[in-house]
C-alpha cells in the first residue's frame, strides 16, 4: 500500500532533514510556524484579557488596595439576615462571610433558585460565588452570581448549573 514516491515531483523542495516523523521542506516549516505562532498569540492575549483572581473573602479584604480595577471571583456564605432584595428592580445586597472576614456585596439580576441565606429547615448554608470588582466605597460590585448547595452531588450539579447561568452578562 505504499504510495509511489518521487513521481511527478517537479516541485519537490529540498528536504530540510528527516525527523523521526516526516520530512519537511522550507515552506512547510514556515507554514507550520505561522499557525503555531498564531495559536500562541491568541492564547497569550486571551489569558491576559480574561484572567480573574479567585480569592477567599479575607484575601480580598487584605489586598483591597491592590485589587481596584481587577476582576475578582470570590466565594463565601451570606451573613444571616443581611440579605436585602428588591424584587422589582432585581437589586440585591448582602454581606459575604468566610473565615471571619466580611465584605458587603451588591448585585443586580436574577439569582439561582437555591440562592438565599441560611435555611434552618434543611440545616444547610448555600455557598455563594460572585465575580466582579471592588469599588472605592468598600463594597464588592458583582456582575455574576453563582450558588452551590453544600451536599456533594448537589454541589457539583449546581456548580455546573450556575456557572452557566452567570455566564457572561451581555
Amino acid at each position, binding site marked *: 500500500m505504499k504510495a509511489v514516491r518521487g513521481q511527478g515531483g517537479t516541485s519537490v523542495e529540498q528536504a530540510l532533514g528527516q525527523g523521526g516523523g*516526516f520530512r519537511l521542506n522550507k515552506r512547510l516549516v514556515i507554514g507550520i510556524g505561522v499557525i503555531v505562532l498564531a495559536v500562541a498569540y491568541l492564547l497569550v492575549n486571551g489569558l491576559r484579557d480574561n484572567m480573574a483572581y479567585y480569592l477567599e473573602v479575607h484575601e480580598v479584604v487584605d489586598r483591597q488596595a491592590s485589587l481596584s480595577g481587577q476582576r475578582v471571583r470570590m466565594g463565601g456564605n451570606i451573613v444571616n439576615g443581611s440579605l436585602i432584595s428588591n424584587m422589582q428592580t432585581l437589586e440585591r445586597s448582602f454581606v459575604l462571610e468566610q473565615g471571619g472576614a466580611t465584605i458587603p456585596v451588591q448585585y443586580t439580576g*436574577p439569582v439561582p433558585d437555591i440562592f438565599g441565606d441560611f435555611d434552618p429547615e434543611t440545616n444547610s448554608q448555600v455557598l455563594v460565588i460572585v465575580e466582579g470588582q471592588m469599588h472605592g466605597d468598600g463594597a464588592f460590585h458583582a456582575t455574576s452570581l453563582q450558588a452551590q448547595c453544600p451536599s456533594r452531588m448537589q454541589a457539583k450539579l449546581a456548580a455546573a448549573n450556575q456557572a452557566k447561568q452567570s455566564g457572561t452578562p451581555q
Partner: protein
Amino acid sequence: MVVSDIGYLALLLAFALAVYSCVASAVGARWRIGELVTSARNAVWANSILMVLAAGILVYGFLSHDYGLQYVLSHSNRAMPWYYVASAFWGGQEGSLLYWATVLGVFSGVAVFLNRRRYARLMPYVISVLSGVMAFFLVVLVFVTNPFQRMPFAMPDGQGLNPILQDPGMMFHPPLLLMGYMSWSIPFAFVIAALVTGRLGMEWVRAIRRWTLTAWTIQSAGLLLGGWWAYHVLGWGGYWGWDPVENVAFLPWVMGTAFLHSVMVVEKRGKLKVWTISLVIAAFLLAIFGTFVVRSGVLSSVHSFAESPIGPYFLAFLAGTLVLSIGLLVYRLPSIRDEEGFDSLVSRESGFLANNLLLVGVAFATFWGTIYPLISEAVSNTKLTVGPPFYEQVNAPLFFILLLLMGIAPLLAWRHTTTAALIKNFRIPAALALLALVATFALTQRIFVALGFSGVVFVFGTIILDYARGVSTRRRNTRESYPEALSGLVARDRARYGGYVVHLGIAIIAVGIIGSSAFQEHKDINIREGESVTVGVYTLTYTGSSVERLADREGDCSTLAVVRDGQYMGAVTPMTEYFPNFPNPSSKVAILTTPLDDLYVFQASKPQDGQVTLSIFVNPLTVWVWVGGSLLFIGYIICAWPEPRPVRVTYGAPEGATVSGS
C-alpha cells in the same frame, strides 16, 4: 446472600480474568504459546458476559427498588417513573464507572470477535491492552467505589435523583458521552499493539478506521445531547458554557476530529504516521481524563484531587499509560518510515496538516484554560481563572480558519494542485461567498458575523459544486438518471462524500452558533399580571399563574401570551417544580422554536402576589445547531456503510467503467 452480591462477585471474577487475560495474552504472543493467547481471548468474551451480568444486576436493583443497596438508595426513589429509575444507573460515580466498564467489555468482545481471523500478530496485544484498561476500571469498581455496596439495613424508600437529571436529555447524554470516551480504547489498543510488534504498516490503520468513525460519531451525539439538555433544563439561555466538565468532554472529540483527517494522509500518502499515532494516544488519555473529571469534579482545586477517592487511581493510571505509550513511541521512532516530504503547499495533505495544527491548537487552548486554576494555584499559590470569553476569544478565529479550510478542501488534490485548477474551481464558490459577505455585512453591520456566514456559504458552494461535477461526469459516461448517478458517486468513495455531508452538518451548526451567540437578546424582568414586555420581535403578556400537581412533584407555572411581529403565536408556560425530597426547586424552561429564532423563557423565581421574575432570551437560528447535528449522523452512516460487493470488485476500475453498486 442477596442478588446484588452476585453482581459484586461478577466484578471480582471479571477483575481476576482481566488481569489474567492482560498477562497471558502478551506472554503467549511473546513466547509463541498459542493456548495462552486463545485462553486470554476466551477470557475477554467471558468478561463481556460478566460485565453485562453485573450491569443487569444493578439495573435489577434499581427496578426492584432494592434500597438496601446504597447506590440505588441515593439515586432513586419509588415516586420516579421507571425509565428515570433505570437511567439513574449512570446518575452517580459508581454506576457510571460500571457502565463504562460494561461497554468496554462488550466493545472488546465485539472487536476481538470481528477480528478473530485477522491481524493475527496484532490481536494478542490488542487483547492485552483492552484487558489492562478493563483491569484498571475493575480495580476502581471492586476496591474503591463499589456500586454494590450494601447498607446495614434496607430503607423503605430512596432519596431520589436530582430533579434536573430527570429529563429525557439526561437519559441519553451521559451514556453516549461515556460510550464515546470508552470507544477510544479500541483504536488505542490497536495502536499500542502496532507499536509493540513493530508492525507499523497499514494494518492498524485499516483495523481502526470504522472504530474511530464510530467513536467520533457517538461522542458528537453525546456532546450535542448534552448541549440540548443544558439548553432545555438549565435556564441560562445557551447550550454551551465552556464549563470545565464540558471542556474535558470536548477535548477527546477535537483530537478525534484531527485524527480522522490525518489518518487519510497516512492512508493515501504514507505521511504523518508518528503524528497520527500520537493523536490516538492523546485522544485515549483525554478520554480517561474526561471520565475522571466528569465523575469526580476535581477541577475546582488542586486539593480536591486528594479528596476524591478515585483521584489517585486515575492519576496513576493516566501517568502510567502516558509514560508507557510515549516510551513505546520513542522506542519505535527509528522504524516508523514516512514517505518523502510534501510535494507542494497547495495540496490536500497540506490542508489536512493545517487542519490538524488548528484543531490541536483549539484543544491546547481549551485544555490550558481548563487546568489554569490548578496550574496557577500550584505555581504561585494564587488561583487565577478564565471564563467563557477566554475560550470564545481564542477559539473563534481558529474555528473560522477551519471553516475556510473545510471549504477549500474539496478543491485540493492530493500531492499538488495547480494554481490554474484551483482558480477555476474556486471562482464560483468564492464569488458566492463574497456576495454573502457583502449582503450579511450590509444587513448586520458586524464584520465577524459576515465573515462567518460567508465562510459557511463558501463551504456549501465548494461541496455542492464537487457533488454536481461528480454527478454530471457520471451521467456523461453512464447515462444514468440523476438519483442513480448520485448514489453511484457516493458508493464509489463513501469516505469522501460521507465526509462532505458531515462538513455540511458542521457548517449548518456554525450558522446556529454564529446566530445565537452574536444576536442573542436578553432581558431579566419582574412583571405583574396583565403587563407586557418586549424582547426583540417578541411581545409577551403575563396572563396569570397556576399550580400543577403531579404524582411526584408540584409545579408553579406562569402563562404568557406571545406575539411575534404582530402575529399571535400561542402561549408559553415556564414552570418552577418542587420535589418533596429535594429542598431546591428546579425549573422547566419554555421554548418556542421557529426556523429563525427561539423564544426562551425561564422563570427565575416562582410567581407570587400576581408578579413573576423572568429571564427572557431570543436566540436566533439556534434550531440549526440540532439540524446540523443530525446531518453528522447521516454522514457517518454513509462513511461507515459496508461496501457492497460489486463495488469492491470494480474497485480501481477506470473512470466511466460500469459500476453496478446499489
